[in-house]
């Protein structure tokens, strides 16, 4: 299967593609011309609906449907906010896309804003990426100078201003309502829903929040038509997806794949990850960012029914949480046999504890407990009851919080225990060795042959 169709990264290797001039030479901004001159806003929404493209930020909600929910009360401004907070461990595709192809995002923002009737749109970028913010601001200046932004764009009477907003270092601001709070100059505390942003979002006005990659696909969809887009991919997983691959692979990096690519090909072919580093073998995979359930190698490669898995929303979630996982944000982390699952799980639990905004007690207290208990087990002070305690706390958090960060904290832990319980038990029964990482690796090596 030659899965080389590139929609987003087609021109990634063209020197100077980050400049307006080169981007334009390569056919850039024709999507804006087509949308603004030939299509009505509703027709653009229709094409996006037909494409079947699903939100690339993690939840996979159909983008066209989200757009059609936007309330349109008379005389009230509407906003488009691009979510470039990218803080989910394992995910670095938006960073890559914005730094290499800023105009692809700007073009998508213009078309999407036009479709939604927004005259002021925001790109909320995590504050650590200040250098990327400067790249985007330069690209915006260039687009403005070329007449694609500002007043009366291309003489069509449509006005748009783009604002790039820095965050301040808080994972929770990736959650869309926390992001809106942050954009209003407040702490990033997620809001209770309803009302949903589509009705009351930024400044209490109707708002759409979409991920960088989602918005970047819009130019291609407008240029080529939603139906063409829907032909790419597999089933309800239409189109291509950026996967950011890290961990013990030969070639970490960002890859654009056609959805439906066999996982075996993604992991092992030289076009993508290039296989596990020399002399080692795959032990576990986190397929879609740290929040999705971890899978042992055999369940990642094949479903419990023995079918080869595909890189698609449906195939990766085949088997539910018992034996499956999620495509999530496309943050792919491969771990070989030297990885201590307990240590990795503790590390992630510390992340969620640190990033909990603290509004709901199950999340605030639960993430703290889980971190403490995991630290105890990892450092050789745990007991067997601790393992069940973790499962219990995870269950109590799930579904009982204002925002999904609570679930995101619970799932990695529950799944690690589900699939690697023996490793947790070994840490309890070998406390001395467990506190020495070297010894653990050696033992794990033996355990996983």
């Amino acid at each position, binding site marked *: 299967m030659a899965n080389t169709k590139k929609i987003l990264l087609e021109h990634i290797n063209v020197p100077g593609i980050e400049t307006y001039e080169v981007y334009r030479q390569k056919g850039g901004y024709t999507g804006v011309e087509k949308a603004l001159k030939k299509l009505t806003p509703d027709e653009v929404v229709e094409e996006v609906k037909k494409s079947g493209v699903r939100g690339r930020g993690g939840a996979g909600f159909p983008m066209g449907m989200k757009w059609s929910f936007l309330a349109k009360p008379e005389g009230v*401004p509407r906003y488009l906010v691009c979510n470039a907070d*990218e*803080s*989910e*461990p*394992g*995910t*670095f595709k*938006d*960073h890559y896309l914005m730094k290499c192809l800023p105009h692809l995002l700007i073009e998508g923002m213009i078309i999407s804003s036009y479709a939604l009737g927004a005259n*002021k749109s925001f790109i909320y970028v*995590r*504050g*650590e*990426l*200040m*250098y990327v913010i*400067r790249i985007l601001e330069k690209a915006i200046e260039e687009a403005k100078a070329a007449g694609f932004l500002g007043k009366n764009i291309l003489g069509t009477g449509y006005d748009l*201003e783009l*604002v790039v*907003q*820095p*965050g*301040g*270092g*808080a*994972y929770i601001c990736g959650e869309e309502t926390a992001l809106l709070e*942050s*954009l*209003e*100059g*407040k*702490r*990033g505390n997620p809001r209770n829903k309803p009302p949903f942003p589509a009705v009351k979002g930024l*400044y209490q006005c109707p708002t759409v929040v979409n991920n960088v990659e989602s918005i970047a696909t819009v130019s291609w969809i407008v240029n080529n038509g939603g139906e063409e887009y829907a032909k790419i991919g597999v089933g309800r997983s239409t189109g291509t997806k950026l996967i*950011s*691959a*890290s*961990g*013990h692979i030969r070639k*970490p*990096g*960002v890859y654009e794949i056609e959805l439906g690519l066999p996982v075996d090909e993604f992991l092992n072919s030289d076009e993508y990850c290039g296989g596990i580093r020399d002399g080692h073998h795959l032990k576990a995979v*986190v397929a879609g960012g*740290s929040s999705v359930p971890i899978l042992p190698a055999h369940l990642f490669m094949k479903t419990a029914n023995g079918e080869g898995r595909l890189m698609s929303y449906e195939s990766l979630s085949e088997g539910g949480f018992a034996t499956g996982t999620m495509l999530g944000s496309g*943050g792919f*982390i491969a*771990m070989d046999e030297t*990885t201590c699952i307990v*240590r*990795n799980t503790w*590390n*992630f639990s510390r*992340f969620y504890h*640190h*990033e909990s905004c603290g509004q709901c007690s199950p999340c605030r207290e639960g993430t703290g407990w889980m971190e403490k208990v995991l630290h105890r087990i990892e450092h050789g002070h745990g007991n067997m009851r601790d393992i069940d305690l973790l499962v219990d706390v995870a269950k109590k958090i799930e579904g009982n919080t204002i925002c999904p960060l609570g679930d995101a904290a619970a799932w990695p832990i529950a799944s690690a225990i589900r699939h690697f319980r023996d490793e947790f038990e070994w840490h309890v029964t070998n406390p001395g060795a467990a506190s020495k990482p070297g010894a653990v690796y050696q033992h794990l090596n033996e355990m996983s042959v």
Partner: protein
Amino acid sequence: MAETATKTAFTAERLKKVEEIIQRYPEGRQKSALLPVLHLAQEQFGWVSAATMDYVAELLSIQPVEVYEVATFYTMFHLEPVGKHVIEYCRTGPCCTMGGEEVYDYLKQKLNIETGETTSDGVFTIKEVECLAACGWGPCFQIREKFYMHLNNQKIDEIIEDLSK
């Protein structure tokens, strides 16, 4: 560093920038400028003191407490004086999977300080941060706006030598 605690006025250039930032938002929504302006403040003063927060509140016509609660929520703002170079290393899973723990230990040994501390000459501060969206290029750290990726002990030697000049 200590003297910056009382120096709370922006340079003329930054003041102009503040004006420009406030214009980005709809009328009456100038509070949205808070994060960008706090970044400007940190850029100029190196850290964000209580006096700086009061100054920012005044510039944006909001209550000082509105600035305090925001500055303390977002981890990028240094609420205490820091060294000339703040090394913020990523301690999250993927970077550790790629050998981060060993490399960061080497860094701490080399500078002879722990995370959260500043070298006695005031040149380096080490801080731990969570995932920097550079996981495949890890282990990594950030110093101001610059990313240092694919770190190993040798690279650390070079970076520290370079920045010590």
